[in-house]
């Protein structure tokens, strides 16, 4: 090749070298930029990865917490949850005690303290059937006295209180229990006879306030041709619910049989 112009060729080579240098610099810069971008890209990538992991963790924890809260509200045992206050515990205990006090009436003799003494409750029963309750409101003074009561007037309350109220109140209450339970039992039996055996009765059931005399006419078969019998039941012992004398007569003939159950 002939070097036509020294200047031009020289300018050409130097310029060419310059151009090559610039090219190299440019490509080097590009490479550096690329590398830098790649570094940033990878950094961001790891950050994204970390954030994703954190998000998954938090999601899992939130789910766990929800499940735990649900489980604790479904759970019946209050003692297991630590949130029951002392007040509720006390309230529940008070209700329990109150229920026990209310259930005491099933023992037949219970009471409640009043501002002036005690109100005794006698709950009568017969053969597993709970019957009426009777009350005596006592004033605790010397002498002990009855303020008011719901004992029927034909039960000998004055007699019993005159004998035992001041000296032996336990005996007084037990005697009264006996009388009232026996009366309730007799009354219950008479009521059942009237209602459940009405088909067998050939007339009204005659009775009195204490239900200690029952008189009625009955047939052995309700609809049959059987003869009517007259029955008369006497309860001479007011502390029992069973008769002491039973007389059964056959109408028309004066033949009768008497059963006496007392010795």
């Amino acid at each position: 090749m002939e070097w036509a112009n020294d200047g031009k060729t020289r300018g050409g080579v130097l310029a060419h070298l310059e151009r090559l240098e610039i090219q190299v610099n440019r490509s080097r810069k590009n490479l550096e930029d690329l590398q830098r971008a790649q570094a940033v890209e990878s950094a961001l990538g790891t950050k994204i990865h970390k954030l994703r992991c954190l998000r998954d963790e938090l999601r899992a924890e939130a789910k766990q917490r929800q499940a735990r809260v649900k489980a604790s509200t479904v759970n019946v045992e209050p003692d297991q949850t630590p949130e029951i206050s002392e007040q509720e515990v006390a309230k529940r205990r008070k209700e329990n005690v109150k229920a026990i006090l209310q259930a005491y009436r099933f023992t037949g003799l219970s009471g409640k303290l009043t501002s002036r003494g005690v109100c005794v409750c006698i709950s009568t029963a017969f053969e597993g059937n709970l019957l009426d309750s009777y009350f005596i409101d006592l004033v605790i003074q010397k002498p002990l006295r009855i303020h008011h009561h719901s004992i029927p007037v034909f039960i000998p309350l004055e007699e019993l209180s005159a004998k035992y109220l001041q000296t032996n109140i336990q005996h007084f209450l037990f005697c009264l229990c006996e009388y009232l339970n026996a009366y309730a039992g007799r009354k219950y039996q008479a009521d059942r006879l009237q209602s459940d055996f009405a088909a067998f009765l050939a007339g009204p059931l005659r009775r009195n306030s204490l239900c200690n005399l029952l008189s009625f006419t009955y047939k052995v078969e309700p609809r049959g041709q059987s003869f009517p019998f007259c029955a008369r039941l006497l309860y001479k012992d007011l502390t029992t619910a069973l008769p002491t004398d039973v007389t059964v007569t056959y109408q028309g003939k004066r033949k009768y049989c008497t059963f006496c159950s007392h010795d």
Partner: protein
Amino acid sequence: MDETLAEFIKRTILKIPMTEMMTVLKAWDFLSEKQLQTVNFRQRKESLVHDLVLLCEEKRASVHDAALLDIIYTQFHRHQKVWDVFQMSKEPGEDIDLFDMEQFKSSFVKILRRALRNVTVSFRDAEENSVWIRIAWGTQYRKPNQYKPVYVVYYSQTPYVFTSSCQLKSNIPLLGQALTVASNHHKIVKMDLRSRYLDSLKAIVFKQYNRNFETHNTTVPLQERTLELDIHMDSRIIHENRIEKERVQRVTQETFGDYPQPRLEFAQYKLETKFKSDFNGDILAERKEPLRCLIKFSSPHLLEALKALAPAGIADAPLSPLLTCIPNKGMNYFKIRDK
């Protein structure tokens, strides 16, 4: 059926208010359903009564049927009579009372008839093993006067008898004797208790007027029941003497309780006491003899009125025990003498 009986039946039916006519006739159960259907109940009362009397004549009503109608009318209108209370007593240590209603009735009639031939006695069984007895008195020579009967109400195996006030006072001892013997008692004494309200008298002597008892089963404890003061009603109202008012309420509640009081119309106090005066020169204070004086408290409902006295500010609380002891002692007639 003779004229006097027809007249008596007519007058008895005339007394019945039209609103109760059907109920009473059904309770009487003398005229059948069929017979009652033939009568026009919408006509004027006089014509209705005329028709009913004719039906009674057809069915040959007797004195006893008429007496039964009279008892039923009185049972519906028991407040029209004034009732006395008698108390019977037994000998101590007597046998158990085996009360037989039929024996009582026959014994009662026998004793009356033994003394007085001319007497009409009728019975009607009532609730709680009780019996209403109607007695029309006559004399040796005169038939019983059906227009002035005495009514007796007796609850079996109790010591109390309720009788409508009898104008013919001479028959009272005989009545008392018949009742005591027939009911296996020994003595009978008239109580100082009288009222028109038979149910209240029963509540007083049977001690059934206070039915409030404290139990563990009651929902409202008696102590916590709020007093009837309007304190919390309006904050612009200031109550003077609040403490005193509360004290009066408390004392009234302790004396009279929370239950409805039995109904009496009056309380009578016969004073035979020396006159007491603060003035020294008073003429009356110099009297040696006791001053006789009768004080009568009257009210449509005496005990409720007494209960309202202190809260209304008319009287001081506590009231005099002479007033507050009425239901407890079973008395509303008092004789007060110097001790």
